[in-house]
């Protein structure tokens, strides 16, 4: 092969390379990743060996490249052009680099001289533009994609710097498409309405696409860092009458929703692009909206879409909602931790019973419970633990709790959580600091009807040998039944099992509800369980959204393990069912939870209900 020219000659002081190769341009992509652009004779199939002497002898470096044909070579088709990334190990002294980088691959062995790096251009986007601007758009796109791979092994602040540089490179190299195109009097355009980050790799997008031709051929999400994902095959399509009016198309399902995972993580809030190519090849693109990161908002926005799925029941849930939401719940769970535990008074620590009460938003329930607990010596014998799941209210609660202890003198502890963690995690964290033999998991809007109820409940629990969970009779404020045990019900024509309360709304004295008995499940609003058993079972599972179905999930596990769940009619408390969540969101969360609960337990429920005569 004959090369048309050599840009420069290797310095005589360097160990001479076997065969030529040369670096034209280099820039730091991040603290430890170098971007180098040049040429050499190696092919993509040749392995690359890179090393550098950091002072203690040569250290091998992680290098990779992508090739392209260079017009200044005699054979412009030969992939001699190289865009190379070189990653240095952690704590390798890169600034300044003490020795040259030696690169070997196939027939080539050449240097990236330390001297070149000393004045390496600090702006990688300019480096990329000046060296690569003349390539075909598809080649440039390939290079951007190649570079985005560097994100795979990066994390922390470094990853953010890298992401910003990759974004700048993408902008320098990419070929913008029109915002919309018109063909055959039809407008083709695409729009992303919302882009939600589930995690660094996982994103959820909702938008619409209006096709000029029959159907779009491709719909591609391009991350700010240049990763690309095809959405069309996986997206859930739905009708958007507003869009159809706007675009004048009669076809339905212009809307799309997709949860997708990127090969490379993406870190930037802005810079997404959505490209659309119709079947006949007309391209257009739309900038993505800023990414929503806040987890609760992301979850809310995802659940909001459940309303779209009456006709395609299950597909949106199974392919998009579930993978996204379950991932959110999982992350939520792993991040849940107690920041601090504060004692108000000196709570009983050798107690037989630990009462765990989550507080969410409405702190005043603490006062309402204190105003009742103050009369009951039984409460002072128990270990009382509140767990605050609204971290933003920590200061308020601390002051409030101090004052309330001053007044009511019922000792208790409060576990303040690092983040909002959800009902399951809040209870599990509360249990993690509990020391009683038995646990009573209780809601803050549950108030006793009479004194001495805790010891009666403990007695009841201890009197049943195979008991798993125990739930008392719970009343609404008008003395009708809120809870007399849980059962499962599948409405006609539905595939989903719903949790139902026995005799809800009937008078508290209803004879049928006045019998203590085993039931399929009991509510977590007031649930007693052996602490060791709770621990063995792994506590509540955090897969459900916003406090729902955790109780039946636990109770089904207990049944599965051979325990009985009991309803006690003798112990009566009030449960006000005060909602701290937005009602509409609660409805959608319930829909999701119900679907998930059936997905997990459907078959088991059918046999349980056959046993209980449902």
């Amino acid at each position, binding site marked *: 092969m004959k090369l048309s020219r050599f840009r420069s000659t290797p310095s005589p002081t360097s160990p001479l390379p076997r065969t030529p190769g040369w670096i034209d341009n280099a820039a730091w992509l991040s603290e430890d990743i170098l971007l180098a652009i040049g040429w050499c004779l190696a092919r993509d199939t040749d392995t690359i060996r890179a090393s550098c002497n950091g002072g203690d002898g040569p250290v091998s470096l992680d290098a990779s490249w992508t090739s392209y044909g260079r017009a200044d070579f005699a054979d412009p088709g030969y992939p001699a052009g190289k865009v190379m990334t070189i990653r240095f190990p952690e704590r390798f002294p890169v600034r300044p680099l003490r020795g040259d980088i030696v690169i070997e691959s196939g027939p080539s062995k050449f240097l990236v001289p330390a001297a070149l790096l000393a004045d390496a251009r600090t702006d990688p986007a300019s480096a990329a533009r000046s060296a690569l601007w003349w390539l075909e758009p598809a080649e440039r796109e390939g290079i951007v994609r190649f570079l985005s791979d560097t994100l795979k092994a990066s994390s922390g602040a470094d990853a953010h710097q890298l992401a910003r540089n990759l974004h700048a490179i993408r902008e320098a190299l990419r070929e913008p498409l029109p915002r919309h195109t018109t063909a055959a009097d039809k407008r083709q355009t695409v729009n992303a309405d919302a882009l939600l980050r589930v995690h660094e790799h996982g994103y959820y997008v909702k938008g619409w696409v209006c096709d000029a031709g029959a159907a779009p051929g491709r719909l591609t999400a391009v991350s700010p860092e240049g990763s690309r994902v095809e959405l069309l095959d996986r997206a859930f399509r739905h009708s958007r009458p507003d869009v159809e009016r706007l675009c004048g198309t009669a076809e339905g399902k212009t809307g799309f929703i997709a949860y997708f995972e990127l090969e490379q993580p993406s870190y930037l809030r802005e810079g997404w692009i959505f490209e659309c190519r119709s079947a006949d090849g007309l391209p257009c693109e739309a900038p993505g909206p800023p990414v929503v990161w806040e987890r609760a908002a992301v979850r809310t926005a995802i659940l909001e879409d459940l309303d779209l799925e009456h006709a395609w029941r299950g597909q949106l849930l199974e392919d998009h909602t579930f993978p996204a939401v379950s991932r959110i719940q999982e992350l939520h769970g792993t991040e849940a931790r107690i920041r601090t535990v504060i004692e108000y008074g000196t709570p009983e620590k050798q107690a037989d019973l630990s009462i765990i009460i989550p507080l969410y938003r409405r702190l005043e329930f603490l006062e309402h419970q204190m*105003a*009742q607990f103050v009369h009951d010596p039984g409460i002072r014998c128990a270990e009382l633990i509140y767990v605050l799941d609204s971290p933003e209210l920590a200061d308020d609660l601390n*002051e409030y709790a101090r004052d309330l202890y*001053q*007044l009511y003198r019922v000792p208790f502890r409060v576990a303040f959580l690092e983040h909002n963690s959800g009902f399951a995690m809040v209870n599990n964290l509360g249990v993690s600091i509990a020391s009683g033999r038995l646990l009573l998991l209780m809601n803050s809007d549950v108030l006793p009807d009479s004194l001495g109820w805790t010891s009666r409940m403990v007695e009841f629990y201890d009197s049943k040998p195979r008991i798993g969970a125990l739930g008392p009779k719970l009343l609404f*404020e*008008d003395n009708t039944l809120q809870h007399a045990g849980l059962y499962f019900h599948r409405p006609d024509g539905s595939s989903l099992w719903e949790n139902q309360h026995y005799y809800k709304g009937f008078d508290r004295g209803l004879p049928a509800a006045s019998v203590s008995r085993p039931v399929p499940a009991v509510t977590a609003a007031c649930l007693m369980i052996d602490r060791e058993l709770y621990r063995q079972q792994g506590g509540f599972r955090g897969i459900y959204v916003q406090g729902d179905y955790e109780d039946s999930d636990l109770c089904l596990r207990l049944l599965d393990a051979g325990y009985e769940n009991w309803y006690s009619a003798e112990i009566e408390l009030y449960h006000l069912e005060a909602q701290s969540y937005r009602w509409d969101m609660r409805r959608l969360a319930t829909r999701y939870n119900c679907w998930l609960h059936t997905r997990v337990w459907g078959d088991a429920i059918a046999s349980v209900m056959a046993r209980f005569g449902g």
Partner: protein
Amino acid sequence: LKRRILYVCHNHPSVAPGGAETYALELYEAMRASANFEPLLLARTGPPFSPEGPIHQGTLLSAVDGDPNQYFFYTDADEFDWLLMTSRKKGLYARHIRAFLETFRPDLVHFQHTLFFGYDIILQTRNTLPHAPIVYTLHEYLPICHRNGQLLRTKSEEPCLEASPLRCHTCFPEISPASFFLRQRFIRSHLSFVDLFLAPSRFLLERFVDWGIPREKIRYEEYGRLPVSRLAEQRTNSGRNRLGFFGQLNFFKGINVLLEAMRRLGEEEPHATRSMREAADAPKPRASDPGPPPHLWVHGANLELSPPEFQDTFRELLEATKANVTFVGRYERTRLPQLMANVDWVVVPSIWWENSPLIIQEAFMHGRPVICSDLGSMAEKVEHGVNGLHFRANDPGSLAETIRYATSSPDLWERLRQGIPEVYRMQDHVSGLDRIYHDLLGR
């Protein structure tokens, strides 16, 4: 050695007038003469009665002129939760109330009113003074009814006898039944730290028993009244056609019912157009004579605090009854003998149950029979046909008829005047309380 009684009240009459606070101060004054007890008075001050902000920095206390045993205690109205009747600023009050109680260590605490303090002050007292009996005078129905204790349904304006979460929610749709349930449980919890409740009327007592206060913890004890400095003169030998209204010019006090009754009477009576002087100077009626037409004097103020529609109706009615109604306006309690001297009958037309209206006692002290609604404690305090007349509450026709009957029946007035009972004297009240305090302290 005298034992110390602390009275706690939500206001002080030197700041703003009011029945309960006036009574509380009078009781405090009267108790100073007791051989056994030494009273202290803690009166709450602050908006809306007095300017915002405590008088001194670093303390909520300030002096009531010239008396080392009376204190003002400042609380912020903004911090007061009107649903639970408690203060949102728990710590502030806990600290300051506690310090006050620890300084004086009263042997017994008698709450007159806990508005603007919050019911938690009772538990704070129990905590600080575990052995001091706690007495609570129920002046009105605030613990039962969120509508300022009026016991009147918000939409129908019907008197209400039963508070329940659902009924209260229908009166206040924006407040959930659960919130009313919590309210009831919260207030009951705090009131359960009281050792003895006093009720100034039997009607009020029954309402609280119905609501959940154990009967053995509540006792009827009427307000004691100081002797009046001078009795209103009685007009002799003339028609008993002069009526007086004394009270707040608001919907609940039924002033518009009374004016409407006067309007109807004015239309019916051809000579009702005679001037006031003519009416007053008319000769004594013969048995067959319908007598001089009734004339009403309206004493009262605070019309501007009522809703505009009520004010409009009031003004229209006043315009329509120019001939037989004289609007006097605001009055000082010290001027009551003179004002009473000008009337023969006192009309109490309230459309709600009332607690124990002081004006009935005032009328009786001055020897004036009372025409009142046949409701609640009014009907309890005034015996129909013995010392006054009842009419169907909120019914101007019934009231007009009753007024016509009262003013045109010769000798009726005299007979009813003879039936007026002696008003419970403050000195008897003080000895009654003396016994109550002794019993409680003796336990």
